[in-house]
């Protein structure tokens, strides 16, 4: 899914977007697909963010168009909860440069 980044403010001195703006260009588009997919069968309302890692090889700037893709890499049931691990990769369309690598652990209660 491609997200055009526009009008972001409050970033670094050189006008990059804040690092955790990855919530918008990395997580939001991919999670929305994963967790509204009836085949995956996850109740979004019970979802808790367990862990998050981001790597930013390069800053993202307003105007960049970023593609994000995510893969479920682990699903584990324990203590009545489901732990879902995701790997996310975000690339800038203009030059295919990787701008963010993400790893998320999501916890679905009552899984």
């Amino acid at each position, binding site marked *: 899914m491609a997200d055009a980044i526009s009008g972001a403010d409050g970033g670094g*001195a050189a006008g*990059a977007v804040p*690092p955790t703006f990855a*919530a918008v260009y990395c*997580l939001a588009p991919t999670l929305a697909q994963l967790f509204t997919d009836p085949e995956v069968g996850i109740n979004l309302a019970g979802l*808790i*963010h367990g862990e998050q890692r981001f790597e*930013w090889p390069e800053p993202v700037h307003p105007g960049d168009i970023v593609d994000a893709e995510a893969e479920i890499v682990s699903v584990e049931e324990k203590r009545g909860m489901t732990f879902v691990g995701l790997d996310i990769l975000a690339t800038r369309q203009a030059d295919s440069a990787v701008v963010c690598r993400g*790893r998320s652990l999501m916890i679905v209660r009552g899984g």
Partner: protein
Amino acid sequence: MTSPTLASVSVGDEIASLTRTVTQEQIGAYAEASGDFNPIHLDAEFATSVGLPGTIAHGLLEMGILADAISRWAGSSEALASLEVRFSKPLRAGESITCNGKVVAVDEDQGLATMDVEAVSSRGERVLTNGRAVVRLTR
């Protein structure tokens, strides 16, 4: 304050502690900004129905405050090469979060400083744990 450089940074250096109060209004604004409208952040009745103490901040909002604390020390948010945390305890609406960090390794060849980072709530709970950040340093 001048930004740290590879030559000036030492293991044991600490970032300036940063405290922010996270109000329900800010959580609502973060939902709008991030597109994450999970009702555990917005609807107190729903939040308590799933066993939470009330509405809680988005983990990534807390992580954003932590990234801000590190970026202020580094001199730019672009210096942040990576950041990871565990969201160990929920931060309730209206509570404050205090972020801290300490340099644990300096890689002269790569020009990187690795930091242990964490955040505690005004209730004294360790809300962000197992935190690790890598910062790019200028020579």
